[in-house]
């Protein structure tokens, strides 16, 4: 299927190796899965998958996660999947929980949680202890979170339906907050080629208003000293650095950007200027991922600390 890549032209100046980028968009995404270490070890899972005719290779940067080499049979139709031994998730969307580094017994908020992949990842990283609040404003999408939680056996997750922009402060504060906001999803075009047809500068600007409100609320419910991960699956600076830049201006004394280090994974620094707008210089410490860099989708992550 021919991609409507004209819209992406406006990123030509910021995306390295432009031709390689465009070429990578023509290929479907590899399937990636991660071990439910509450139930099984990665080594045991590899052995089971091999018996099911599924060859995998380990991701170099994420312990217990694997890239599927053979798509037949589909991993999601195996008994091991139904038994909750692993979960299937796009590689690049593993980034925000991995960088957030949730610890056992902490209290974590996933503000825009549906369909629950990152919630599950966080819950497992916490060893099924403490509290993960999976919030989403869309009641119809929350069923997907429940299915993931039940299959993987996650007893540390509560699911909430509420508008994240007005998430109640009565729910207390959180050690870490993930804000994986609704976005224009440009970075998912390898999975959903039609997504680019809906993208426009106006669309991104409209989404950015809600994204800012979500990030602002995340800052408000994060405890002093806590960490916030802001992420999107889009290339649009209006939805990425410019949203983070605005929240830094709203909370100049309270927030700092944490540098991101990620061995064995290629990424580009965040932008510090875009179309005549000068942005916070520390935004260079945020992370941009383009599909051709690691054979993934596109993504953006910023890590913020709320000062004591």
């Amino acid at each position, binding site marked *: 299927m021919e991609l409507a890549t004209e819209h992406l032209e406006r990123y030509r100046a910021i995306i390295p190796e432009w031709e390689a980028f465009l070429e990578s968009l023509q290929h479907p995404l590899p399937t990636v899965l991660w071990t439910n270490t509450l139930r099984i070890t990665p080594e045991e899972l590899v052995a089971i998958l091999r018996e099911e005719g599924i060859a995998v290779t380990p991701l170099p940067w994420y312990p217990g996660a694997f890239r599927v080499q053979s798509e037949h049979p589909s991993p999601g139709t195996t008994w091991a999947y139904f*038994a909750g031994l692993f979960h299937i998730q796009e590689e690049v969307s593993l980034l925000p929980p991995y960088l957030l580094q949730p610890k056992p017994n902490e209290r974590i908020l996933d503000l825009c949680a549906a369909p629950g992949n990152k919630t599950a990842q966080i819950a497992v990283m916490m060893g099924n202890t403490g*509290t993960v609040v999976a919030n989403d404003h869309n009641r119809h999408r929350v069923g997907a*979170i429940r299915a993931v939680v*039940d299959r993987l056996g996650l*007893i*540390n997750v509560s699911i909430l339906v509420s508008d994240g922009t007005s998430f109640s402060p009565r729910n207390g504060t959180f050690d870490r907050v993930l804000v994986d906001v609704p976005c224009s999803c440009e970075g998912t075009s390898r999975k959903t080629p039609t997504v680019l047809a809906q993208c426009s500068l106006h669309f991104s600007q409209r989404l950015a208003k809600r994204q800012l409100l979500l990030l602002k609320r995340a800052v408000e419910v994060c405890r002093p000293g806590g960490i916030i991960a802001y992420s999107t699956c889009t290339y649009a600076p209006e939805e990425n650095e410019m949203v983070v830049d605005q929240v830094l201006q709203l909370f100049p004394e309270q927030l700092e950007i944490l540098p991101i280090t990620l061995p064995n994974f290629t990424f580009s620094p965040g932008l510090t200027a875009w179309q005549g707008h000068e942005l916070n210089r520390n935004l260079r410490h945020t992370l941009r991922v383009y599909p051709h860099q690691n054979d993934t989708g596109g993504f953006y992550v910023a890590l913020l600390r709320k000062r004591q």
Partner: protein
Amino acid sequence: MKFRPEQFQRWQPCPPDILAPLLQYLHRRFDLPLDLLQQYQWLQQNLKTLALTHPAHQPPQKPEPMAIGIPALKLGGKIPKITSAAARFFGTAATKHVVELPDRSALQSYLAVARFPLSMDDCIQCTEAGVVIVRYRGIPIGTGFLKLDSPDTPILQSQFSK
């Protein structure tokens, strides 16, 4: 059994006088250690369901959560029924009323929610008909209903749920 409406408080811990016999039942039926079952918090999800959560879990207050932890025990029938999620959660610790699917054919039948015969060798300590925990290669995948009408050929009705 189920909660009487006047007893019920959504997402509050199950009262000890109601919980104790339920955990005793799980202990008797599946030989699940009582101290294992008591490690967790059992919450009232609705009149007919108990949910299982971590004891240190601090659920949000407003609005009321749609779900907390996993649904674990159904109370609507004459006897409580362990859910698929709880069977997968506790199933490796069970040593009684457990079915080990012997081969891929049995596994396929189970995943197809079929009714199929087993041999008694596949049934671990299955002394009574009723709900069993179903495992494959020692890994719990759900529940089934075991019929023991013929002592040589037990029949398993799959209750597989994705």
